[in-house]
């Protein structure tokens, strides 16, 4: 099959099976499980088909473009199924199959849980497959956000548990914010390089055309911040232990094996491209990864809850993976027999972690089912019954891999990592690398100690004191009654996965077959140099391993570091949340105090402030913008005289208004101002405006006087804040004066339209308003327009679409050129009329008599006016005039 279809189908197979499951009745439990398993199985098969028939060497080929989606946004269905992407996709879908089966055992035959769980899980699976197979930056972001959302849904699985919901929000905010930063970073990289896909970026790097620059560095830093948030790097790691509020299948799948590795994936995707270009790569990633690695392992040792322990070891391992990519930036050219410039065993490290962490979580859930997840209550679990014996064996096998014991893949992987550290030290000879060696040994030591303590607890001969009220891992159903094969699926998926660890660790050919074809540095496999137990050479990495194991065994038995230190970052999100809500509330109360004066002053001050800020650079040029004398035609004083008079009138009335205290006089002065403005319109040769203004001025004057008669006559109080008001008013007036002046003098921009040039927009309308043919009008001299010319029919078809066919250009603009503006204007009028109507209608205008009686009784009881917009009749200051007014503006009064 075409690789495009293979990839697309593989990505969407899981969510499709989930969607079909949603359409099935809830009682079809068996069918639902079969269908849900089918989705990831189909993905595995399609990807395997892709890898076998098409190979995984698509690098640099520009990816596989399935279809354009939104090319303007650089968002396309573009896949990049190369070695790394296919490996991740196989990991996601392969473990997905087992997790789907495990979830059936975990939830039991609870139809409602399964009905809700499978679609969410399968949505996540599609999102994750999309992340690791997407080539286009924006497509990756889309799927990235989908993983955050599905993770949110799954962590907050217990909808009625406020704690779980809070943890879900915490995880979503951290990873969601990380996603936004990631988007910014990818856009910066895209802007810098002008390519918008990983394969094209790799192509640039391969040709040596990727030039470093501040934009690229900033972009990478932002991308890394997003990846670090997703992959729970210190100090953003705190959401991951919180995410353990999710059901265990989710923890095993999202929060250990797959989603948290999305950040690692991204860094792994970028290292062959950027590591050589950006010097910041190792110096940023290595220390951060190392700190995360040691810190996570240290906190894990303090915890007693199984899921918390494994969550913190996951953080530790994610730190190790990041550090590995950081170290891969060091060059080892010409170093002895090693011809590879970079040493990295990413597939081994990533797969190794998934192969033991998923079983650990699976078994944590299983043990929680039959007993408890708290270590002190698990003493002597091995000796309780057959099931607990099997589970103990499997969980200890997985924990042995956590401790990187010999004969496991994990041991080999850890040797590789130590080898990488040691060679980085040899290559750079920086003393800082010595610290890294210490960090590696410490992490190994903590992991070994965790295994020792787990083994000592589970294999202890003591039994904990029985607590009859104690119930295991609460999830709302009981497993005692379920019979058959399903309860065994609580541990079978874990056993299957962990067995791979031992097969790969014991049989040399198996390891090579598993990792060789996918690994980035295949040289070491060709040479047979991978350190299985029986072909490790004595050397520093081996000594580091021995050191870690020895110290770890000692620490495991020692009474040190037992639950004394809590993660201080547990308080990070609650503090942030408190700060955001409380601080936000405070800011809101300051800005929205309910004081109209405050709002207006805020706007006025902002205007003054922005004006001052915008001219701060060229204050000297302010007077220069106004060519002296422009706008004042002193030579035409006769023409100007009415204008001077009107200006005097307008200014006088405007300035009088604040001084006059009598309200009726004030309204009349406002009206006088309006009539003077009418005169100004007349001076501006705008008869339409003058007519409109004068009629509206009359109506609004009457309206205002009517309203005044409905309001109380109150003695005006003393003037307050006069000086600040005058200053602010004068500043606003000056600014408006200046803005008007600068926009009204000087040249106007010319307009080019349909091959013609117009001196300004007004001329365009003048010339086109009749029928788009201006030659006749322009040709006539001195305004004597030939009637026949005006009425001339358009002679060509194109003229039909020009012009409005009217001589009054203002009217033509309103009803033709800008007809929709007029429609909007009428709409505003209608809305205002409806608003007035609603507000002034009688209190009981739309109620039946019975309802009125009930309302009155209620009002009499409570004695309150209530919060509705209904208007109670005024009780005081009520004179007969008001009734006249009421009848005039409130027609429903008469009904």
């Amino acid at each position, binding site marked *: 099959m075409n690789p495009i279809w293979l990839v697309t189908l593989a990505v969407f197979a899981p969510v499709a099976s989930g969607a079909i499951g949603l359409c099935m009745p809830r009682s079809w439990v068996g069918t639902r499980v079969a269908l849900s398993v089918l989705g990831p199985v189909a993905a595995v098969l399609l990807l395997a088909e892709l890898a076998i028939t098409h190979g995984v060497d698509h690098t640099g080929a520009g990816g596989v473009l399935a279809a354009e989606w939104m090319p303007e946004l650089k968002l396309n269905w573009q896949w990049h199924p190369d070695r790394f992407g296919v490996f991740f996709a196989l990991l996601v879908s392969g473990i997905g199959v087992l997790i789907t089966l495990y979830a059936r055992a975990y939830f039991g035959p609870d139809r409602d849980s399964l009905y809700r769980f499978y679609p969410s899980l399968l949505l996540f699976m599609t999102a994750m497959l999309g992340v690791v197979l997407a080539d286009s930056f924006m497509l990756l972001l889309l799927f990235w956000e989908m993983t955050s959302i599905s993770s949110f849904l799954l962590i907050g699985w217990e909808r009625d548990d406020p704690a779980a919901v809070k943890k879900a929000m915490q995880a979503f905010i951290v990873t969601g914010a990380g996603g936004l930063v990631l988007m910014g970073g990818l856009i910066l990289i895209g802007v810098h390089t002008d390519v918008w896909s990983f394969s094209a970026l790799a192509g640039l790097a391969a040709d040596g055309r990727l030039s470093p620059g501040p934009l690229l560095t900033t972009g990478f830093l932002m991308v890394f911040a997003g990846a670090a948030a997703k992959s729970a790097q210190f100090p953003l790691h705190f959401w991951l232990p919180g995410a353990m509020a999710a059901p265990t299948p989710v923890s095993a799948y999202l929060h250990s094996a797959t989603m948290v590795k999305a950040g690692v994936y991204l860094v792994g995707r970028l290292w062959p491209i950027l590591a050589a270009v950006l010097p910041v790569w190792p110096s940023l990633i290595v220390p951060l990864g190392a700190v995360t690695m040691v810190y996570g392992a240290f906190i894990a040792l303090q915890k007693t809850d199984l899921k918390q322990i494994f969550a913190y070891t996951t953080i530790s391992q994610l730190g190790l993976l990041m550090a590995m990519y950081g170290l891969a930036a060091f060059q080892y050219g010409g170093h002895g027999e090693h011809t590879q410039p970079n040493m990295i065993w990413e597939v081994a490290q990533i797969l190794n972690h998934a192969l033991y962490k998923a079983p650990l979580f699976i078994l944590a859930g299983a043990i929680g089912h039959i007993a408890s997840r708290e270590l002190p209550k698990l003493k002597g679990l091995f000796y309780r019954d057959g099931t607990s014996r099997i589970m103990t064996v499997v969980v200890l096998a997985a924990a042995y891999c956590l401790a990187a014991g010999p004969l496991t893949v994990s041991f080999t992987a850890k040797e590789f990592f130590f080898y990488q550290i040691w060679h980085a030290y040899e290559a750079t000879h920086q003393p800082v690398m010595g610290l890294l060696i210490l960090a590696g040994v410490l992490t190994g030591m903590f992991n070994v100690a965790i295994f020792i303590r787990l083994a000592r607890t589970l294999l202890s001969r003591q039994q904990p004191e029985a607590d009859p009220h104690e119930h295991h891992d609460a999830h709302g159903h009981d497993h005692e009654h379920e019979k058959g094969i399903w309860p065994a699926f609580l541990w079978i998926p874990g056993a299957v996965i962990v067995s791979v660890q031992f097969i790969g660790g014991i049989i040399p050919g198996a390891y090579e077959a598993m990792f060789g074809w996918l690994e980035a540095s295949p040289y070491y496999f060709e040479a047979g140099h991978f350190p299985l137990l029986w072909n490790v050479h004595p050397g520093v990495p081996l000594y580091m391993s021995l050191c870690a194991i020895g110290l770890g065994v000692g620490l495991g038995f020692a009474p040190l570091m037992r639950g004394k230190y809590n993660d201080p970052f547990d308080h990070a999100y609650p503090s942030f949340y408190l700060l955001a809500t409380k601080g936000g509330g405070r800011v809101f109360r300051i800005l929205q105090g309910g004081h109209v004066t405050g709002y207006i002053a805020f706007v006025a001050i902002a205007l003054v402030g922005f004006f001052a800020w915008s001219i701060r650079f060229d204050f000297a040029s302010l007077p220069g913008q106004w060519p002296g004398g422009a706008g004042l035609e002193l030579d035409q004083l006769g023409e100007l005289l009415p204008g001077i008079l009107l200006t005097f009138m307008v200014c006088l009335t405007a300035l009088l208004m604040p001084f006059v205290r009598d309200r009726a006089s004030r309204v009349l002065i406002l009206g006088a101002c309006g009539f003077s403005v009418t005169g100004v319109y007349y001076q501006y040769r705008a008869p339409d405006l003058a007519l409109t203004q004068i009629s509206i001025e009359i109506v609004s004057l009457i309206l205002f006087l009517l309203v005044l008669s409905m309001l109380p006559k109150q003695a005006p109080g003393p003037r307050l804040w006069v000086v600040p008001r005058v200053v602010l008013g004068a500043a606003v007036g000056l600014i408006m004066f200046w803005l008007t002046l600068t926009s009204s003098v000087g040249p106007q921009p010319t307009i080019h339209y349909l091959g013609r040039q117009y001196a300004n927009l007004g001329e365009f309308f003048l010339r086109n*308003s009749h029928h788009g043919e201006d030659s006749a009008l322009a040709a006539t001299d001195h305004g004597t327009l030939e009637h026949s010319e005006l009425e001339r029919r358009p002679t060509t078809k194109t003229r039909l679409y020009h012009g409005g066919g009217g001589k009054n250009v203002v009217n033509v603009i309103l009803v033709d050129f800008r007809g929709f503006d007029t429609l909007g204007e009428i709409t505003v009028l209608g809305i205002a009329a409806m608003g007035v109507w609603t507000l002034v209608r009688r209190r009981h205008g739309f109620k039946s008599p019975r309802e009125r009686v009930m309302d009155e009784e209620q009002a009499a009881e409570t004695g309150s006016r209530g919060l509705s917009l209904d208007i109670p009749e005024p009780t005081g200051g009520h004179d007969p005039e008001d009734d006249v007014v009421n009848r005039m503006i409130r027609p429903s009064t008469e009904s």
Partner: protein
Amino acid sequence: MTLLTCIMVGVIFAAATYMMLGRELKGVCMGVFLMGHGANLAIIATSRSPIGREPPVLGLARISELADPLPQALILTAIVIGFAVQAFLLTLLVITWRRSRTLQLAELAVEEGA
């Protein structure tokens, strides 16, 4: 004429801002209406000096001698919408008085906060 209009705009805006910062709702409303006049005058000022021109009606003069019709069209819309806003604002004024028995902004703010 342009300079005169600019002076009118400045004075109107100064007086209107002063009134809008007052402590009583009626005065604030009047300030808003006054400011409406100022805004319209600011728009008409952009049509350059009207002296020596004719109204923008085709046939009255050569096109180069007609006034700019575009600001006039804008203001015509603005006047009508301004009237709608004015009617609505006055209604709100009455409603506020009937519900709260005060038009003092300080007291209204207290009521809103309560």
